[in-house]
């Protein structure tokens, strides 16, 4: 649920930001690779980040996102390729000569220095005039609202405050890019949500490019202008949060970002013009839709923008919130798919209800938003026979969802329920399977 709320927030937040930014390719990775022994941590990645953008590298652990960040920070040397920052090749520069600053997962504050000295560190090293240091540090302390804690040592402040000091310590140097390595991972949920908002505000205020590494899609979705989803050292998909959520390009992305239902099917011949569903409209749009044969199901229709050919095996992915659930058979409409099933589980979540509906071998997850006063209706209950329907445009035909993907998506226990329970394949994956190997760079 958190994810879906977070995703909603993005749409409004991102729109507001995008207006003020100049668009220019600013930070570029060109064909960057890095190997650790046999493991390809980063595999020929090319990527451009625009100035002022909040860009996230998102992926399961071991996907190479942290390695990519460390290559930019200068802690790792790429085996191939180069890194350009503002048009300048920085591949061979040591970390201390790069105009980028990092926020580490463990914050890495200097324990022997006060909050003030921590923030002043970069300026002091750069031998800036004393007065300027004082002014800048004071400005930062105001930004993070910790003016009265300036003389405390890191072990005397809370986790959230440490996080803010780490941000101030990096930002005071006015880096061209701020690198954030899972900065919220060490905080508890409440604090994480607060810091999320603060990070967003800080980004709006300072206008520096943020490169954010995370395995938490909720964080990435709610903060980012654009996201690169990574898998096994490669970029799987790059786009705005909405693009990635609404139009996942692979099964991996569909399953990793939010919930989805997968149906295993074969593409059949395209719809004939004499489609039973609609005589008038189908003539013009027929070739955009394919018919899908799925075992135990009536034939389904799906938008086919990828020219997937007849006879090909595909995975149909449909987000739970795109499905409608009703007791009565919905009225037939053009491109409306419907199947019948039995409600197996109902979870009432206040603003919405989550249903699991059994049809044949599939356990389909459906989310129903309550836009009207719920107590006036007779809600659907456990063991009821229901109809599930969705528009053909809302499904995606994707390549097979492999066992390898399942293992990669293994998340920490509290996350598993949220992302994977919805369908059988994933539910099985959640139970067993080894966790993916961590890349040595992390």
């Amino acid at each position: 649920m958190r994810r879906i709320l977070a995703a909603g927030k993005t749409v409004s937040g991102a729109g507001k930001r995008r207006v003020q930014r100049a668009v220019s390719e600013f930070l570029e990775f060109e064909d960057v690779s890095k190997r650790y022994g046999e493991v390809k941590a980063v595999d020929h990645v090319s990527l451009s980040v625009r100035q002022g953008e909040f860009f996230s590298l998102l992926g399961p652990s071991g996907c190479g996102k942290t390695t990519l960040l460390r290559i930019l920070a200068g802690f790792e040397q790429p085996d191939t390729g180069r890194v350009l920052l503002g048009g300048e090749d920085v591949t061979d520069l040591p970390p201390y000569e790069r105009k980028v600053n990092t926020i580490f997962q463990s914050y890495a504050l200097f324990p022997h220095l006060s909050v003030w000295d921590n923030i002043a560190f970069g300026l002091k090293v750069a031998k800036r005039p004393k007065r300027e240091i004082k002014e800048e540090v004071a400005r930062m302390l105001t930004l993070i609202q910790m003016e009265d804690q300036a003389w405390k040592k890191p072990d005397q402040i809370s986790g959230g405050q440490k996080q803010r000091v780490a941000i101030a310590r990096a930002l005071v140097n006015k880096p061209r890019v701020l690198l954030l390595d899972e900065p919220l991972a060490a905080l508890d949920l409440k604090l994480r949500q607060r810091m999320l908002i603060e990070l967003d505000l800080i980004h709006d205020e300072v206008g520096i490019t943020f490169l954010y590494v995370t395995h938490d899609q909720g964080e990435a979705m709610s903060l980012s202008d654009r996201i690169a989803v990574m898998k096994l050292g490669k970029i799987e998909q790059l786009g705005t949060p909405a693009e990635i959520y609404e139009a996942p390009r692979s099964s991996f992305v569909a399953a990793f970002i939010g919930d989805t239902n997968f149906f295993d099917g074969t593409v059949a011949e395209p719809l004939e013009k004499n489609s039973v569903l609609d005589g008038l409209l189908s003539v013009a749009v027929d070739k955009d839709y394919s018919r899908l044969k799925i075992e135990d199901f009536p034939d389904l229709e799906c938008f086919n923008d990828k020219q997937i050919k007849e006879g090909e095996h595909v995975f149909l992915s449909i987000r739970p919130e795109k499905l409608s659930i009703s007791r009565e058979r919905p009225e037939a409409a053009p491109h409306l798919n419907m199947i019948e099933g039995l409600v197996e589980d109902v979870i009432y979540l206040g603003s919405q209800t989550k249903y699991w509906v059994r049809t044949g071998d599939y356990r389909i997850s459906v989310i129903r938003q309550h836009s009207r006063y719920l107590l006036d209706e007779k809600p659907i209950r456990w063991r009821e026979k229901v109809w599930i329907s969705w528009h053909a445009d809302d499904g995606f035909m994707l390549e097979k969802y492999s066992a390898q993907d399942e293992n990669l998506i293994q998340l920490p226990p509290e996350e598993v329920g949220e992302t994977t329970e919805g369908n059988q394949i994933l539910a099985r994956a959640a139970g067993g399977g080894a966790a993916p190997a961590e890349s040595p760079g992390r």
Partner: protein
Amino acid sequence: MRPSRVPLIVTWSVIAFFYIPIAILVANSFNSSRFGGSWESTSLKWYIRLMDEPSIWHALTNTLVIAASATLISMVLGTSAAFALHRFAGSRLQKLHYSIIYTPLVLPEILMGLSMLLFFVALKVQLGLATIAIAHVTFCLSYVAMTVLARLQDFDFSIIEAAQDLGAGWWTTVWKVLLPMLAPGILAGGLLAFTLSIDDFVISFFVAGPGSTTLPIKIYSMIKYGAPPLINALSTILLAITFLCVIASQYLSDRGRRGAA
């Protein structure tokens, strides 16, 4: 059920067993009687008498010079050793290195002393302050290395990366971040080494030369010629110094551990 009194009794017995002899020694150092058996009156007579014994002051100077130089050298070498031990943890050479560093802590002192003596004689080195200091370094180094290694094991090395990330070059990082953070550990190890060096007898006895008598050796020879009250006073002073060092060492390693957390 009432808690058993046995642990309490055992604890106090052990403490008594350890500390009563020391308490008697300290008390006697303030006894104006020549003989420990009878109490005459409380006085600082023996401490004053101590002032007039140039040979004791000479021995004390020797001891402090040796302890200071052995401590300084072993702080440098021990810290470097700890870095190497930490950096290459897991490799076979590291294990060997660790054993080499660790051995002096468990080796019988008499064996160390004897082998040092044979070594110096074989090299035809003139025995004296330098040889004692070198001999002391061999075991002091181990204490420093072990203390610093313990600190390195829970050291967050992303702090080093953070310093570099903020623009600090190698030397700045070492001076501004690494050493200040490790200083409590290094100092704690150093103080431990200092105390051990001050009251080392066996090894010093083997490698001492003419004119390089240390305080423990001096005390030993004074006992042989019989001057117990003076020794009481001297030992009390020595005890006080040792105590201060140990307390400082513990304070520093505690503070260091909290700093790292």
